[in-house]
């Protein structure tokens, strides 16, 4: 055994940096979850701070916490309802395009927003929607209407998050579906044409069933991220005016933990949301196994 290990000493040396980095930045934080049950302050370590039992979980009795849960679920559900089917529809539409130059152009353009940060997205929203000089409000004023304070409105916040999320990622998310479409056997289409099936019938009976396995994999893979509704996206758009609907679990953890120093409470909330995410993965995998006959594992 030792001789075999010695034979592979180069390989172990190559793997070592990764093993150390994972230990420091993945496994140590996992050990740090114990802070959820401790009274931690900067200056202590995660090991020597005193245990406090479930005291940090008192946020469960805080009304504000349940508002945050409600906000998170709202955004998660809306994002899922619009964000999951949209790339499938877009991929099917792109696949129907006859002009291959235009097809490539649409693909290139629709992937583009994926490469910009959520900060740039926030600026685009600001330039379009702000009260003083925003494009949309200028337009409304030109038409003689009353300008709308989109960026600080509780009604417009959710549509704004869902729409900007779609804008940024819908094109990118078509890549897997478009790849799945190219693996469909062309003979199926030929046979369908011989039997007189039109484009619409071919899409419904060949293309769509052809990408269904990909759809189910994407569905499962999207589950763990479902309630991680995107701090990157939401934090830049949040302000005191829209906070009643904009505050989600991630921003709540951030505020309690990093900004106010309640490390134990914030870790406890984080732990709770990881547990929910894990449950969502397990449930979806079970369901997928029942429907498809196979899950991810």
């Amino acid at each position, binding site marked *: 055994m030792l001789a*075999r*290990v010695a034979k*592979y000493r*180069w*390989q172990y040396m*190559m*793997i070592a*940096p*990764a*093993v150390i*980095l*994972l230990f*420091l*930045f993945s496994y*140590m*934080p*996992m050990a*740090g*979850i114990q802070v959820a049950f401790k009274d*931690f302050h900067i200056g202590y*370590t995660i090991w020597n701070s005193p245990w406090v039992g479930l005291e940090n979980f008192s946020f469960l009795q805080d009304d504000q916490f349940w508002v945050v849960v409600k906000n998170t679920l709202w955004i998660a559900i809306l994002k899922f309802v619009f964000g999951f089917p949209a790339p499938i529809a877009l991929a099917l*539409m792109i696949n*129907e*395009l006859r002009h291959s130059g*235009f097809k490539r*152009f*649409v693909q*290139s*353009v629709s*992937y*583009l927003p994926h*490469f*910009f*940060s*959520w*900060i*740039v997205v*926030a*600026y685009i929203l*600001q330039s379009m929607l702000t009260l003083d*000089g925003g*494009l949309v409000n*200028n337009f409304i*004023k030109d038409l003689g209407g009353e300008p709308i304070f989109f960026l600080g409105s509780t009604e417009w916040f959710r549509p704004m998050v869902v729409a900007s999320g779609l*804008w940024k990622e819908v*094109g990118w998310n078509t*890549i*897997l579906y478009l790849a799945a479409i190219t693996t469909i056997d062309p003979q199926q289409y030929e046979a369908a044409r011989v039997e007189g099936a039109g*484009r*619409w019938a071919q899409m419904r009976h060949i293309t769509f069933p052809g990408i269904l396995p990909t759809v189910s994999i994407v569905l499962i893979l999207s589950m763990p991220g479902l309630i991680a509704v995107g701090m990157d996206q939401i934090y830049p758009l949040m302000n005191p005016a829209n906070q009643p609907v904009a505050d989600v679990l991630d921003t709540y*953890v*951030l505020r309690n*933990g990093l900004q106010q120093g309640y*490390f134990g409470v*914030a*870790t406890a909330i*984080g732990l709770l*949301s*990881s547990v929910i995410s*894990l449950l969502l993965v397990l449930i979806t995998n079970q369901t997928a196994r029942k429907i498809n006959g196979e899950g991810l594992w």
Partner: protein
Amino acid sequence: MKRSASENFGQILIVLLLALLCVSVLYPFIYMLAISLNVGSDAAKGGVYLWPRHFTWDNFNVVLGNAVIRHAFGITVIRTLVGTASGLLITLLAAFGLSYRSLPLRGTLLGYVLITMLFNGGLIPFYIQLHQLHLLNSFWVYIVPTAFSAWNMFVMMKFIIGIPEALIESAELDGASPLRILWSVIVPLSKPMLAAIGLFTGVMHWNDWFAGAFYVSDQNLIPVQTFLQQLLSAQDLASVLGSNNNVEALVRGTVLTNITLMSIKMATVMVSAIPILCVYPFLQRYFVKGVLIGSVKG
């Protein structure tokens, strides 16, 4: 082939819808560019939609002449270069080492990596660990924690395993060490994959604002995306421009009356977005490949 009228109608409808999508993606950039090239006070009156009405470089001059903004760009460029290079190196080394199927303890090591993809400690324990390692408020907080990516490692490993073993064996017979094989056999054959992963890593570094906002408090260490995040909610120009002599000189001139907070914001965003817009067309063929290598089940 003859097409029915309804099919032609469907085609037209799809073309129109997708053209609308393209406009919705491209238009905001055209609009922001027009505003940033227009005299600010004039743009504030409205009516600038597609191109500048009252053309000026003033906004870009102020942005590019400002020491705070220039410094933030410097940080972004350095962290993107260092972060991409170190990320590719460390991840590739591990992927190559783990691609040896006969490696003792290989399964255990793969499990060790896989677990980190399924569970994590969450934000606060991660932050506490950064504190313990004295990485907070240091440039290295941008580089070290993200230098290894489990996801990229699996993509790379799958790619390397796909390389014909005969090539590696013949190099071994020539007496090449594993490092030598990695450099002269694996790397040349993995260029498209390395380009794709390098691109994703680089974009991640270029676009990250979070680390700069929460792990760093020294203004001299923030990258441009964090600067933009702070600027997003800025209420007046002073907070943006700081007390920089160069800018003060500019501002004291005629420029002061002409630039607005909005025109400066738009110019700064465009400066951060233009490099991505420029490299995008050249890198496009790599990233689609990259996504597909990474997505095959199993």
